[in-house]
């Protein structure tokens, strides 16, 4: 498994890094921690490059290097990287510029296959999309953003599952809220939900919401299948059947100790672009962490 963790700063990204690394440890995944710096106008790229070269001669690093240094120290302190790597400390000179707007350093991991720290520059969504497309990540972990279109663009354009982190709360207190319906997306989401529940020993609330009073056959079948799947895997699963608007019901059912897991919408991307989708609406309006499985 490959996990991409997008961080922005020490102040805002600690929960994201924390949760991302927990997941990486649980799944023995290889991890890339990415900082995307601000976009530079095409008119100024060379001038900014020149100024940054000039700064580097004075020992002044470009923005982002400090954030990577903070991430490195976090990894060292929590023993995510080998003792040798931690002892060597964060060396800016080991950052390799591959051109193509990607500067990276590779670290040997203790629990994970390896940890890459990378710097990119530009608009966050195109940069993350490019990173995911070229390196095939399974999950992108990112903190909640106040930007208006961020949730929409993440769900629409990033070609991996999306995990949006909210607060830094211990996983041991969490329950999974597995949203289940008869759609194709539910099957893969179920698999991810099961893996997370097993890795962190979390109980699961299986939630199915029907708009009508009578639950259709498909919904009932999907709900029962989910319960059986969890039970077979030895995971405590609780059945919740509710009637109402699916988005509102999921939001109202979720507490801050729920990790919502739901499949991505199978709607046509054009329809999703204009009308949105259930996972998007839940992501935008809910205060719980959420994993949208693609």
């Amino acid at each position, binding site marked *: 498994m490959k996990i991409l963790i997008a961080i922005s700063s020490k102040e805002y990204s600690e929960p994201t890094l924390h949760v991302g690394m927990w997941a990486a440890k649980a799944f023995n995944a290889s991890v890339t921690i990415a900082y995307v*710096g*601000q976009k*530079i*106008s*095409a*008119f*100024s*790229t*060379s*001038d*900014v*490059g*020149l*100024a*940054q*070269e*000039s*700064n580097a*001669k*004075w020992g*002044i690093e*470009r*923005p*982002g290097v400090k954030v990577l240094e903070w991430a490195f120290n976090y990894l060292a302190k929590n023993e995510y990287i080998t003792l040798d790597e931690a002892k060597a400390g964060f060396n800016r000179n080991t950052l390799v510029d591959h051109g193509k707007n990607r500067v990276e350093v590779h670290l040997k991991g203790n629990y994970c296959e390896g940890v890459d720290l990378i710097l990119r520059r530009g608009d966050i969504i*195109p940069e993350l*999309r490019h990173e995911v497309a070229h390196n095939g990540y399974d999950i992108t972990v990112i903190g909640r953003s106040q930007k208006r279109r961020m949730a929409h663009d993440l769900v*629409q*354009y990033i*070609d991996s599952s999306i995990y949006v982190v909210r607060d830094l709360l211990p996983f041991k207190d969490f329950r999974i809220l597995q949203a289940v319906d008869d759609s194709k997306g539910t099957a893969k989401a179920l698999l991810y939900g099961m893996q997370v529940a097993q890795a962190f020993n979390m109980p699961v609330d299986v939630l199915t919401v029907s708009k009508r009073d009578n639950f259709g056959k498909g919904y009932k079948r999907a709900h029962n299948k989910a319960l059986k799947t969890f039970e077979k895997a030895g995971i405590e699963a609780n059945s919740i059947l509710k009637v109402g608007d699916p988005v509102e019901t999921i939001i109202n059912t979720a507490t801050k100790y729920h990790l919502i897991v739901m499949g991505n919408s199978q709607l*046509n*991307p*054009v329809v999703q*672009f204009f009308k949105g989708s259930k996972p998007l609406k839940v992501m935008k309006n809910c205060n719980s962490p959420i994993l949208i499985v693609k």
Partner: protein
Amino acid sequence: MLTNRSLNTIIFWLSQKRWFIFALIIGAVFYLLPTPEGLTTEGHHILVIVVIAIFLIIFEPIPLPAIAFIVLILEVLFSIASPNDAAKSFFSDAVFFIMGSLMLAVAIVSQGLDKRLALGIVRITGNKTWKLVLGFLGISAILSSFIGEHTVTAMMMPVSLTLLHYTKADPKQLKRLTPLLLFSIAYGSAMGSIGTPSGGGRNVIMLDYWREFGIANITYLKWMSYAYPMLLVEIPLAALILWFTFKPEHTTMDTAVRKLKVDVAKAGKMTSKEISAIGIFIIVFLGWVFLSPKIGLGIVALIGVVLYLLFGLINWESLNRNTNWGVILLFGAAISMGIQMKDTGAALWVAENAIVFLEKITPNIELLRWFVSVFLTGILTNLLSNAATVAVIGPIVLNMGGDQIIIGFSTAIASAFAYLTVVASPTCMIIHSSGLVKSKDYLRAGWKMFLMSVIVLFIFSQIW
């Protein structure tokens, strides 16, 4: 049948290129409109290209060279110019100058002269913050009037950042001192670029237009006699504006200055390499003053580049890597648009109609001309690149009647009023790239700088 993934890729492409599509639609609408009375078909078409180019330059949905190529392709496809005429209007001494000055910037910055500069500044200013602000602003302004604003900002920024780091390990916590010093450099460099023709590509573009349109042949020293007094007046005013906008947390920077002096002293005596670098620049400067009327500012700049290469002070790989070829191509295309606007009569048509329209507001034609040249340029320069602004606006304002020298100067100088946005000029972008100044800081100080500059320019335009 398209898969969901392919559809998503298309939607993503469309979202990224929406301003390109918008520009094409707007261009198509303008193209399909009947040619207005008094405007030639070619003039109509060049204005369509200008509208498309402005959108593309502001929003940058495609790389700069692609914008330049679109301009040239459309000029030929719309029968505005033959392929050879388009090529001729594309390359001029102004483009040589822009290319040469970008390369000179790379050559000068890589010599490590910033340590000498730092020592010079702190020796003059001492450790009082207000003196440092005045020193940074004044020296940035004076240097950038000769060697270009981006060169100076690139050299001065590490000096100010080092001082800030010595004042506080995390300069972000110096919420007022940090922007104060960084804006002193950025705005000082931007202001200074008006001082001489070599201060910025846009000055050379205006010189080229005056010559090309048969208006005048302004020499290097003549330009200085117009612009330099204004620059000297602006320096203390700008220092006051910045000081009162970002009242700093520290009124002295004693420890920081002392540490900086120790740091810089380690550099030792000047090396022969550094002396050669300064010597070559002095030769270039003398060439601009005495030879440029005959051989052009661009050729002199290129002579300087050759000398730096010849003496091994810079290698071609480094020049090639750090020179923004996209900017050179785009400015070439912008100048080509300007020349075609003049040749097709589009510039005259826009100028006349602008005057007729604005006459409804006030009958004072002199004020109107000045208003259009300064305000339009000042606003556009904060959205477009400043050289592109002069390339496009220049032919229009030079056709508005009145004293074409004064109006030309006002336009070229107003294009330096790029204080309001991060993208207004490379100097603004350079300090923003440090991650230490916020976008709102530009507006906070910028509007005062803009207003002050307009007032000072107005006073000087009455004196000229």
